[in-house]
Structure formats: C-alpha cells, structure tokens
C-alpha cells in the first residue's frame, strides 16, 4: 500500500487540460455541447471535492450517528431521484411503496451483508459502510426505477386485458401476474448482465479501486463477489417489495382497477 501513486495538483490540472482540448474541438466543429460538458465537469468537481472532505471527516470520527445520517441522506436522495426519473403520474400510495421498498430492501441487504458476510466490528465502521451502502442503494435505485416504469407502463398498455381478466372472475393478483413478472425481470436484468460480463468485458469499480490501492487482486475479487451478491440481493428484494406492493395500489378493496388522475390520457412528464 506504500507504493500508491498519489495524483499531485499539477497532474490533476493536466487532466482538466485534456477536457479543455476536447471543448475546443467541440467548438471548432460547431457541435455546440461544450457548455453542457463544462457544467458537468464543474458539478462533478465540486461534488467530489465536497464529498472527499466530508468522507475524510466521517471516516476520521468513526461516529455512529454521522454514519446513520449519511445513510439517511443517501436513501432520501435515491428516493427523490426515483420520483423524478419516472415519467408517468405517481399516486401518493405508490410513492410510499417506492420509499418503503427502497428502505426495507436495502437495509435488510445491508444488515445481512455488513454483519454476516463481512462481519464488521463495529458494525457502523464508516470506511466500509458508506461506500458499500452506496453501491447497494445506487443499484437498487436503478432497479426500482426500471421496475416501476415497466409496471406502470404494463398497466397502462394492458388495462383492457386486466379488466377482461377481472370480468372473468380473476383476482387482481392473477389478472396482473404477467405484468408484475415482466417488471421484476426488467428491473434485475441490468444486474444479471453486469455479472455475466464482469471480469471478462470489464473490471468492476470496487475491484479496480482496491487493486489501485495496492490490495491483492485475490482479496479484491472476494470483495467484488460479495458485493455483487449483495447488490443482487438488495435489487431483488427492493424490486419484489415494489412490484408486489405497488400493484396493490391500483386496486381498491372491491378488487376494482383504480388508476391515478391523468394516468391513461395525461401527459408523460419530460
């Protein structure tokens, strides 16, 4: 670990020069996206510098409450991000289900992963908890967004099939079974695909980071395998809770299909 190459300030500035050259090329070619590129680079820099200092402080303090606060903020931002990314109108009940699915699914996966798989002591050790929780929450966020979008779109497109099944005496669960299964599969597909390509097409982030930090690849792969299984568990659990509870928000106690205002004819949010 002693022979890690630290990136000096001048070297970091040279990385920005690389982007500057790219911006000039964009401008010369009149592609016109250089402003977007500069905003993204600036935001990324400010966010990472801030998070670097915050993490340095939290890791140094090793404080339970600061770790919990970080987890709460991460969950809240993830849930907010899901709401903004879903284009169809969401009912209050469905939003609640998203929140419950995210928190329950990721927390369960975290507790199992941190206590049983890694055996953290203390369990809130921020150096481990925050980055690993970030991976579980981030992947679950993507899974829930995909699952919710597929579920809502399935209900919208297949409304007549759902009502047709209800008219024949199907219960709501049976009438929507194919839509729920398809939403679950769509949500976990990216996780499955990333596991299939892992180690052959690319080296995953956690493993790359550990190897760059001087850790033996043999230790790094153990962490990577464990985190991938944790991600698969967290994504599956959050999405199972989402699709099974989310579909129920579309039915009342009389097993009638109840759609939110503007769900069928309303405008899709941009």
């Amino acid at each position, binding site marked *: 670990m002693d022979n890690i190459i630290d990136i000096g300030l001048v070297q970091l500035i040279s990385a920005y020069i690389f982007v500057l050259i790219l911006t000039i090329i964009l401008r010369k070619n009149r592609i016109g996206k250089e402003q977007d590129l500069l905003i993204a680079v600036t935001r990324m820099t400010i966010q990472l510098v801030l998070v670097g200092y915050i993490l340095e402080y939290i890791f140094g303090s090793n404080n339970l409450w600061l770790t919990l606060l970080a987890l709460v903020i991460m969950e809240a931002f993830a849930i907010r991000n899901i709401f903004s990314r879903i284009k169809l109108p969401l009912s209050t009940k469905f939003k609640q289900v998203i929140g419950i699915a995210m928190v329950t699914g990721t927390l369960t996966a975290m507790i199992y992963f941190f206590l049983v798989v890694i055996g953290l002591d203390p369990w809130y050790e921020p150096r481990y908890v925050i980055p690993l929780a970030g991976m579980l929450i981030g992947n679950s966020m993507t899974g829930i967004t995909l699952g919710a979008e597929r579920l809502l779109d399935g209900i919208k497109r297949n409304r*007549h*099939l759902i*009502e*047709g*099944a*209800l*008219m*024949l*005496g*199907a*219960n709501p669960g*049976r*009438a929507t079974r194919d839509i729920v299964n398809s939403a679950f599969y769509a949500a976990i597909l990216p996780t499955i695909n990333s596991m299939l390509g892992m180690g052959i097409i690319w080296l995953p982030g956690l493993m790359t980071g550990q190897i760059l930090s001087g850790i033996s690849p043999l230790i790094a792969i153990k962490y990577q395998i464990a985190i991938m299984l944790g991600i698969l568990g967290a994504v599956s659990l959050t999405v199972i809770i989402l699709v099974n509870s989310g579909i129920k928000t579309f039915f009342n106690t*009389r*097993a*009638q*299909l109840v759609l939110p205002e503007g769900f069928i004819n309303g405008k899709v949010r941009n």
Partner: protein
Amino acid sequence: MNFILENVKYRQILDIPYLSLTGPGVTCIVGESGSGKTTLLKLLNNLISPDQGQVLYNEVNLEALDPIQLRRQVIMFPQNPSIFPGSIQDNLHLGLEFAGKPLPSVTELNHALDLANLEKPLEAGVEELSGGEQQRLALARLFLLEPEVLLLDEPSSALDDATEVLVLNSINDFAQSREITLIMVTHSKAVANKYAETIITIHNGQVVRNQEVAVRG
C-alpha cells in the same frame, strides 16, 4: 335471480332511482351511444361502485359480497373482449383458471367452440383469427364458465349480419338450456325485439322506459 338498483348515481353518467332486473330470461338494454348502458353493466359486475345508492343482487348489497365470487357468477362480456396471447386452447384454459374452475376435457373445449360457431383447431394461434373469430372465441370461453348471469355488451358488434344471427342464437340457446339470465346491451332495436322479454331504454343516464315483451317459447 334479481338485481335491484336503488337511488343509484354514478358521476354524471347514471341516475337511476329504481330499477329491477329479474331472471332467468333475456333483458335488453337499449339506448344511444354514451347513454350509460355499459356503465350500468359495469355496476352489476362490480367493476365500479355507485357514488350513491345501492345495487342488490338476490337482495344482498353488492358491497357486502366478495367481488371475485360475484364476478364468477355474474360474468361480463365487454364490447371488445380480451384475447390473451397464445392459442385458442390457452384462452379457453385462462378463462377457466381466472374463474377458479377445473380444466375440462378436449371434447368439452371443442363443444364450446361448436356452440360459439368457431370452426378452428384448439392449437390455432389467436393472431390467425379475424376480429369476428376472436369474438366467438371469447364467447366459447364464456360458455365453459356456466355463470348464473351473463352481462353482454354489444356481443355481436364485430360480426357481419349472418354471423350475428348465428352468435346471438347460440348465446340465447345456451342461456335458455341452462336457465342463465342474459342482460344484453344493444344498439339494435331489432335484436332487442327478437330476443328480449324485457326491454329497458336508457337516455342520458336515466331509465326512460321499462317494457315487458311477450314471453318467447
């Protein structure tokens, strides 16, 4: 069998102070497009609930009945019935599965197709069927369920005149042989006059006429 609607209001679509529908037999509901005929059927099937008033089925408020069990006894056949991806047999099986009934023999499935005048093999894919054939497949699916009440919403709307007569006759024969009550929405006065024992006319969500017709043999 009887349905009674008391002081039923549903949005701005239906306003029925009192209506009694009795069976077995055929009741036709006629009226212009948008007059509330389909909404009335949906209320009877408990796909929607009235904003005010109550709907009684055999003197019990629908809200007190298990909606799934009710829909297995009082089945609705919409204007554009759902045809699910797969084969004819898959669709017949699905209907039975939805209704919680055991799967019958191939002979019984073919008999249902005969009753609905659909001359296609069970393994044929639904994408091969015309609109009229899909309508008849949906009818065959219905015949296997043997409900107490059939709510039919323009059952022959997708059919040509010759097939319409065949299909309506087969529905009527099926219902008569099993003492099933038919409540049928139709825009055609000729259809109503031919099959109905009672004709209810709806205009702007209100019952404007409730007419007994001579009992047919």
